């Protein structure tokens, strides 16, 4: 009953239980945080805008992205993955989401940033619908915890419009 094996087993089981409990509590404590992030994006220039040989529209633009995501960070946050997506509707597709830029924020010190960039991923439509198209720019973020549940949210910034003509 009090052999070495039993004691080792009991100790191990207890240690694992406590560890699991602490992990669960760390994950739960994230939901006590109510973040208030802010983001602002300015489209500075349409670098070029054309129809590809296969018939799909493609556009390249330069943007100014600024955001303050410091309030997303808690003690259980490993990193925040942030990306900016263009979202629009076409006759064929009820939703198009195209990631234009993304970044990994490793710590709270880097969570208030300002970046001047052209789109990192190609902005290509499935078709020829981009001329004069109104689109939303949406700042999404995915919080990766040290352990536990991942969560995500976004800020939608409506009212952007592409030019009427190719250039």
């Amino acid at each position, binding site marked *: 009953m009090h052999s070495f094996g039993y004691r080792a087993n009991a100790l191990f089981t207890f240690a694992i239980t406590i560890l699991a409990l602490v*992990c669960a509590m760390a994950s739960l404590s994230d939901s006590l945080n109510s973040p208030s992030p802010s983001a602002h994006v300015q489209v500075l220039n349409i670098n070029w805008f054309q129809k590809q040989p296969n018939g799909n529209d493609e556009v390249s633009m330069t943007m100014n992205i600024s955001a303050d995501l410091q309030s997303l960070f808690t003690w259980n946050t490993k990193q925040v993955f942030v*990306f900016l997506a263009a979202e629009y509707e076409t006759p064929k597709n009820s939703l198009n989401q195209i990631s234009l830029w993304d970044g990994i924020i490793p710590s709270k010190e880097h969570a208030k940033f300002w970046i001047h960039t052209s789109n990192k991923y190609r902005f290509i439509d499935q078709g020829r619908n981009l001329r004069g198209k109104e689109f939303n720019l949406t700042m999404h973020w995915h919080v990766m915890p040290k352990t536990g549940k991942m969560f995500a949210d976004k800020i939608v910034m409506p009212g952007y419009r592409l030019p009427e003509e190719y250039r």
Partner: protein
Amino acid sequence: MGWIGETMDSIKSIQIRQLLTQAVSLGMIVTSALIIWKALMCITGSESPVVVVLSGSMEPGFKRGDILFLHMSKDPIRAGEIVVFNVDGREIPIVHRVIKVHERQDGEVDILTKGDNNYGDDRLLYAQGQLWLQRHHIMGRAVGFLPYVGWVTIIMTEKPIIKYILIGALGLLVITSKD
């Protein structure tokens, strides 16, 4: 090491009735593990509710040996979500992030993925000539995360001998336990 001698004694003194009890309790352990796995499959709706990250393509978010909990629901797939997908002609599922979504009126969807730590998107990993993933390629989306625990399975698949030693030791423990 007195407990090895004790163990040997207890193996010698096994009666037929005791042997049956041990067999039943061993069976209980195996079936309860199976029940938990199948229940997880039902709850999450994913054919593999837990996956182990095998590559560093999602670093620094997910490292090799981390465990991801999957969930498969009817909710539409959106950009930014981390999905697990199977490409035709590849056996090992891949865990990457969705960067582009084109969803048609009837709900059919075209998805492009990329690993956070990879330079380019995943079109090179897809089957020859495949440009998009469809709904049926997706096995689930990652909802939760547990670090390091997956190393156990990585070690066991890469060094099978450790697996056999472990199973043997556990089996011996179950057989020789007195209650």
